[in-house]
């Protein structure tokens, strides 16, 4: 009998609420066949369910606990993540609380030796980084799920077994009212770093673990400093190691510090050990305010991924699929990109619009992204947590030089999570005009946001399915194109046209947007008649200087992998 705790987790600032277990239909003797079951109701599982619902597909979330995650965990959400979360309708709520920011500082011997500015364009709606505790994000996602009839969350339901067959998946679970099984066409494992599904399937992650443990600790304290990343190198109280500080909403600060090589996690989390080190850090930066600990945890840096995220009828996403280096806020931010990529593909397979080969592209694209992240973050790790004497010497030499020489500044550069270009994706249309464009996102890249006016951006208007972005000097899109699109929609194909018109003679309405000064045309390298074909995850899969309307059905087939590849 699975008995999850129904006592709200302790916190000095967050009110955990309990979501009670409810008897499942199967436990009342009702037979059910679910199109999709998602294991894990963390940020990635919840986002997957909301994305699937956005495409009209129902899912059941199975969650072992009866409340949101303990502690603030993932606290920095990138612009790309906000763009993804905007499509499922939670960003307004997030921004009521979240702290946006752009600047990062590297400090050595009390001197700021490097300052990094993440770019912010007029065309961007969201700031490069947005700080919000994970409990709040999960809460907002759950509130959104509760408004969505296509999604059911089963709390207090723990996975104990799985049968991954050709015809479907049987998931065995245990609950406060005893065990039962769910039958599903597809199973998505979003159950995190210690994924039970991954273990039950006998799958091993591949890659490296870095040596070195880190403590993260949240304290409530009044520090009068702006919301900027602070990285302290080799402080006297923690020689050779690195400390990070981030501001969170509600007067909470995150401290993140490296432990000495020989120290055990239990030692590090002992209250007196935490108190001493946190106080030493505050003393060093000259902060004299009282503080209180909310939460602490130890983690280690890993760089691991499954080589394949699709196994029979089971799909892996987020930390269940990979464990990424901590530097550069890559955990949840990578997970959002994963599940957004996955959801539309699985939705279209479930709806009969595409076959299993479309799902295989999810695995190819996102495993490649994970490998790229591992390589890139490895560079940051060499600097933030040097793995050998040689790297430590070079790091220390750089720190010393940074006090008087600016040329070593770039070595402090903080590489952060960014969206990936699926430049080699089989979903990209070959033989289009991709290379002829002098500007704009290329095939495989995500759309650039565009500002149309006060509080009005391109990403506010995107349809759920494929989007044909059509640029024209006429007030409306050509009748011929409109007819083509209507025909495709009548066949059940998920395509909408978003028109960007330069004519100045029309009122923007619905999917017709007005480019008053040609700025959007310029940013996209477009002329009248140009078009971009955009996937439901906002990545471009084809672009034409002059779109041939008759080719549209064939292009969409290609993007769904419906044609045999020659």
């Amino acid at each position, binding site marked *: 009998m699975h008995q999850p705790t129904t006592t709200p987790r302790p916190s000095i600032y967050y009110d955990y609420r309990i979501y009670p277990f409810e008897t499942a239909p199967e436990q009342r003797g009702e037979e059910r066949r679910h199109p999709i079951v998602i294991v894990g109701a963390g940020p990635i599982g919840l986002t997957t369910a909301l994305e699937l619902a956005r495409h009209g597909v129902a899912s059941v979330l199975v969650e072992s606990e009866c409340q949101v995650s303990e502690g603030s965990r993932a606290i920095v959400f990138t612009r790309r993540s906000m763009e993804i979360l905007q499509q499922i309708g939670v960003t307004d709520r997030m921004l009521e609380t979240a702290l946006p920011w752009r600047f990062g500082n590297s400090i050595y011997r009390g001197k700021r030796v490097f300052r990094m500015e993440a770019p912010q364009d007029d065309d961007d709606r969201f700031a490069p980084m947005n700080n919000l505790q994970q409990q709040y994000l999960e809460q907002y996602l759950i509130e959104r799920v509760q408004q969505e009839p296509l999604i059911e969350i089963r709390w207090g339901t723990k996975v104990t077994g799985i049968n991954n067959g050709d015809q479907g998946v049987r998931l065995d679970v245990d609950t406060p009212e005893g065990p039962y099984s769910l039958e599903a066409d597809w199973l998505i494992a979003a159950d995190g770093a210690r994924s039970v599904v991954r273990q039950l399937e006998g799958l091993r992650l591949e890659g490296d673990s870095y040596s070195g443990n880190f403590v993260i600790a949240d304290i409530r304290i009044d520090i009068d400093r702006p919301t900027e990343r602070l990285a302290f190198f080799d402080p006297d109280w923690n020689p050779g190691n690195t400390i990070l500080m981030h501001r969170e909403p509600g007067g909470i600060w995150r401290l993140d510090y490296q432990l000495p090589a020989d120290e055990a996690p239990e030692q590090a989390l002992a209250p007196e050990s935490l108190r001493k080190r946190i106080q030493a850090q505050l003393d060093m930066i000259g902060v004299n305010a009282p503080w209180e600990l909310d939460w602490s945890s130890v983690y280690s840096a890993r760089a691991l991924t499954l080589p394949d995220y699709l196994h029979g009828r089971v799909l892996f996403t987020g930390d269940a699929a990979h464990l990424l280096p901590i530097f550069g806020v890559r955990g949840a931010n990578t997970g959002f990109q994963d599940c957004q990529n996955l959801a539309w593909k699985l939705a279209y397979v479930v709806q009969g619009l595409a076959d299993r080969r479309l799902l295989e592209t999810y695995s190819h694209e996102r495993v490649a992204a994970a490998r790229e992240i591992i390589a890139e973050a490895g560079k940051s790790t060499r600097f933030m947590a040097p793995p050998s004497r040689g790297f430590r*010497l*070079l790091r*220390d*030499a*750089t720190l*010393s*030089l940074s006090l008087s*020489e600016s*040329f*070593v500044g770039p070595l402090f550069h903080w590489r952060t999570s960014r969206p990936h270009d699926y430049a080699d994706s089989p979903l990209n249309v070959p033989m289009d005009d991709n290379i002829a464009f002098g500007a704009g996102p290329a095939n495989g890249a995500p759309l650039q946001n565009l500002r149309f006016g006060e509080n009005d951006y391109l990403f506010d208007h995107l349809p759920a399915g494929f989007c044909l972005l059509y640029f024209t000097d006429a007030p409306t899109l050509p009748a011929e194109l409109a007819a083509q699109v209507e025909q495709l929609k009548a066949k059940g194909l998920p395509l909408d046209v978003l028109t960007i018109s330069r004519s100045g003679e029309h009122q923007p309405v619905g999917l017709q947007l007005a480019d008053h000064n040609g700025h959007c045309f310029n940013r996209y390298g477009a002329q009248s008649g140009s078009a971009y074909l955009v996937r439901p995850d906002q990545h471009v899969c084809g672009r034409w200087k002059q779109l041939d309307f008759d080719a549209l059905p064939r292009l969409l087939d290609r993007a769904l992998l419906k044609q045999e590849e020659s």
Partner: protein
Amino acid sequence: MTNPNLSIQDLETVYDTLAESIDAAGPERETLFLTKLTLLMAREIGDAERVLALIASAQKDL
């Protein structure tokens, strides 16, 4: 940009100054000092290929 040949006098000056600087840095800091110096010189040479070739030369007969 660089003078390929140090005069014997200049070579001896560099030699002596390096030795004295290593002594001044002390055993705890001498490697750090030399690493910094290497980075500064690499920047001065300004050509990664040449620097890597010099690293290879220095690795011989250790």
